[in-house]
Every structure is written in structure tokens, then in C-alpha cells.
């Protein structure tokens, strides 16, 4: 049990979590529900039906002005110039070493107006970095306190949203967003998420958040899900978690995130990343599957023939797959799928194999 003396922030629906029996834990300065019924039940709920997550701890930052686009093109790794109004994009806030200060989703409202949704733990630092890097006439505003945010995820999530809240985004392709109303309350609905399922993330005014939470949960296909399930779900689909799998010292090339870098134009860290890509990164972030009983955990050494060749950055028992899974940095020559490795789990040697990402792929329904 960790005891913290820092005051923790509470989301606008803290009371709902307590009423629902959520087990509240400190996370990135916030008091958040790690689970309600249990992580496995909540994980399966999201894979089979729909789960509702409170992600109000996430930070929101508006970047606006005539040079906002050009500034973000320089500050963020991905090609923000490729976005049309209503498009969303996964991107990185890279540093000049090619390291990843944060990963985030950028939303384009119009040519001069972008919303960045960033990790809670990094929000203040991100705002400082971006503010220091933009043009004088570009405005950077931390609007986290003006937004609650929910993630509704699962194969039935968008049906539930359409039929219970009269917001139909079933025809909206992934990584788009649109303005809607739920019971007269303006909300922004984006077809994004962190689970590998269909679904959406919804930005909500904090004062209306409890009523909208209740409305979403009134659909029998929807049940609340906590941070623990969020973690097992994202790990099965190999989405990195900033602070675990990626950070200021790991690069986009090492993390396999070169696909979110616009190599043709300058951005912070591009020179370092190009040099690393040219020379070949010494390590790569790979997906591992335990091929015998045992659960890898962050920090476990990865071995080959008794020699240390890497480190696990995230690990869990996969509720969908039924075996231990992990993300780990390993020597690049051992990063090929099919490579047999060993994970030292507190002194016990657990055999594992490098697998193609993602480890779990949702069943496509027609």
C-alpha cells in the first residue's frame, strides 16, 4: 500500500466511482479507479461488449493561432499538415535527442485550432515545452480543468452510444471526431481509444459529466472499467505506455514508432532519429509471449543463453490470450518474431518468444 502526502486530484465523477465500488488508487497525481468488479471481468466486458472508462485525468491543451499548424509541425513528430478538419492523429512530443517526452493525440478543429490530449503525468511539462517552442502569436492553453473525458470502448460501444445517447458515429472512420450533443450538452466524440477495440473517447463539460456518465452506463451493454483493465487491454494490442515503455530516454526508432514521424520535414529530434535510423538502433521494443507458466513484469531482465539482452518494460497475464505477455527492449539482432528468449521472473527462468505486434487482434465482425 503506497502512502502519499501529496493531495490527489479527483475527477468530476469521483463520487460515482465510490458508489460503484471502485477501488481508488493514486495514479499520476489523481485518485482513479483501478477496478470495480475485477480486472478480468472488466477486460472481457470491453472485448465482448462495451466498457466505460473515466479518463478525465488526461490533459487537454489548445494550440491556436495563424502559425499553430507550422509550430506543431516542427514540435510534434507526425505530419499535422496531413490532417483535415475533424481528423485526429497519434503523435509524439520528441526532444532533440529523439527521445519521447510524451505521446498524445492531436485533433484538428480548423487550420488555426488544434487540441492536444496528453498524458496526465506529463501535462504540465508538455505545456511548458510547447509554450517555449511556439511562435509569439501562437496561444498554448492548458484547458484540462475544463474537460472531463470518458472512453467508451468495445464492439458494442458505438451501438450503445447511438441507441442510448442518440449520438451516431458508427460511420465515422477511426481517428476522426465530431461535435454532438447528449441530452442537450455539447460533447466532442472522437473515434479513438487505447484498447484495440472499436469505440470512442468523449470530451464532456465537467459539470455535466456525472449525468452523461450515468446516461452511458444506463445502456445494459455498457459497464464501468478501471485502469487495471485499461492496462491489460492496451498491452495485448501493444500500445506503449509513456513512463513505462517509452520515455525521454527511449527514441521513436527504438520504440518502433518511426511510422508517426514525418521524415521529410524538420521536427525536434529528427536529426538524432535519422542518424540512429541510419546507424541502426542498438535495441528495439518487442512484444514477448511467455511460452510456459509465468508472468513477466516491468524490470524483469530478458536473457538469451544466460546473458542479459534486454529488459521488460510492461508485463501482465493476458486475460484474452491466457498467457503472460510483455513489451521489452531487446538487442536489435534478437528482435525478430520467432526468436526464443528467457525472462528472469524473480529468479525463475520463463521461456518466451518474440511475437509480431499486436499480440491480440480483435475479431473483425461484418
Amino acid at each position, binding site marked *: 500500500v503506497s502512502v502519499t502526502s501529496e493531495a490527489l486530484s479527483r475527477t468530476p465523477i469521483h463520487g460515482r466511482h465510490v458508489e460503484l465500488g471502485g477501488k481508488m488508487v493514486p495514479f499520476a497525481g489523481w485518485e482513479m479507479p483501478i477496478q470495480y468488479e475485477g480486472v*478480468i471481468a472488466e477486460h472481457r466486458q470491453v472485448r465482448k461488449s462495451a466498457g466505460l472508462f473515466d479518463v478525465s485525468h488526461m490533459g487537454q491543451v489548445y494550440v491556436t493561432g495563424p502559425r499553430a499548424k507550422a509550430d506543431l509541425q516542427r514540435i510534434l513528430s507526425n505530419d499535422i499538415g496531413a490532417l483535415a478538419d475533424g481528423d485526429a492523429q497519434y503523435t509524439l512530443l520528441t526532444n532533440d535527442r529523439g527521445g519521447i517526452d510524451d505521446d498524445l493525440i492531436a485533433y484538428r478543429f480548423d487550420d488555426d485550432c488544434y487540441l492536444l490530449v496528453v498524458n496526465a503525468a506529463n501535462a504540465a511539462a508538455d505545456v511548458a515545452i510547447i509554450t517555449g517552442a511556439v511562435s509569439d502569436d501562437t496561444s498554448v492553453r492548458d484547458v484540462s480543468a475544463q474537460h472531463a473525458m470518458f472512453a467508451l470502448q468495445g464492439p458494442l460501444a458505438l451501438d450503445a452510444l447511438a441507441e442510448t445517447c442518440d449520438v451516431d458515429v458508427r460511420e465515422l472512420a477511426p481517428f476522426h471526431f465530431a461535435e454532438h450533443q447528449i441530452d442537450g450538452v455539447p460533447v466532442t466524440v472522437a473515434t479513438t481509444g487505447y484498447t484495440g477495440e472499436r469505440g470512442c473517447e468523449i470530451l464532456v463539460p465537467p459539470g455535466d459529466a456525472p449525468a452523461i456518465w450515468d446516461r452511458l452506463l444506463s445502456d445494459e451493454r455498457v459497464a464501468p472499467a478501471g485502469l487495471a483493465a485499461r492496462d491489460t487491454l492496451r498491452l495485448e494490442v501493444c500500445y506503449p505506455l509513456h513512463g513505462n515503455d517509452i520515455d525521454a530516454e527511449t527514441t521513436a526508432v527504438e520504440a518502433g514508432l518511426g511510422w508517426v514521424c514525418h521524415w521529410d520535414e524538420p521536427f525536434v529530434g529528427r536529426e538524432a532519429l535519422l542518424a540512429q535510423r541510419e546507424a541502426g538502433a542498438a535495441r528495439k521494443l518487442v512484444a514477448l509471449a511467455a511460452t510456459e507458466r509465468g508472468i513477466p513484469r516491468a524490470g524483469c531482465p530478458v536473457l538469451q543463453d544466460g546473458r542479459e539482452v534486454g529488459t521488460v518494460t510492461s508485463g501482465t497475464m493476458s486475460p484474452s490470450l491466457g498467457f503472460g505477455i510483455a513489451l521489452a527492449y531487446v538487442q536489435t539482432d534478437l528482435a525478430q518474431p520467432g526468436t526464443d528468449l528467457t525472462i528472469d521472473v524473480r529468479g525463475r527462468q520463463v521461456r518466451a518468444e518474440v511475437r509480431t505486434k499486436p499480440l491480440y487482434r480483435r475479431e473483425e465482425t461484418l
Partner: protein
Amino acid sequence: VSATRYPEELLYHPEHDWARIGDDGVAEFGVTWFAQDSLGDVVFFDPKDVGSTFAAGESYGELESVKTVSDLVAPMGGEIVEVNQEVVDEPERVNTDPYANWLVRVKLSDPAEKDSLLSAAAYADLV
């Protein structure tokens, strides 16, 4: 609440383990309601082998949930004479009923060690 969460016929170790001591000098060990609730969904039970010996307070295996791993602390010293294979096969049984689902049976080295354990009421005060 404590009557169902912490049965009175058991003795408790402060590390959230219980012992059910039989007349034959053999005890069953398990974990408490608090332990399984703290761990969350248990997915892996990894006991030491039958024949392993340990002192009171030492580890006799590991219990692992989706989110974390915990050492199993022996409330008393002895030798494992049986492992509950049902729990090895279905670790979630620990969540369903942490008292019916004992983890190991242990031939006690010193049954008098029970005097150092806690009653249900004393343990309930602790948690």
C-alpha cells in the same frame, strides 16, 4: 462483516495468511479475504514443491494476480506434504473463497508456534 471475512476457527499471520491446524500436526495454509481483495484477480499459484521446508515467516511460494505478485508467508514452520492442485489449475478459486481453498498442507515442525498467531478479531483489527 469480520465473521465472514475472517472465520474464527482460523489463526492469522499479520502478512495476511491463515492457518487451519488439524489434530494430526498437519495444518492447511491459505490467504485471507483482505489478501485476495488487495491482489485482485489471482491468475497464478506457484508453491514450493512437496517436501520443501521453511520456518515461520518464510516464503512457501507465490500468488500472482493480474496486476501484482505476492510472496506467500508461512504462518508456521514445517514441510509441505500436499499442494492444492485445484488451486494450481484454477487460481481464481482464491478469490471465490479464500478459506475453502487452502493452498498447501504442512507438517508442522513446532505446533506451539500457533501461540504467536492472531485470532480473527485481532487480525480484523489489524486490517
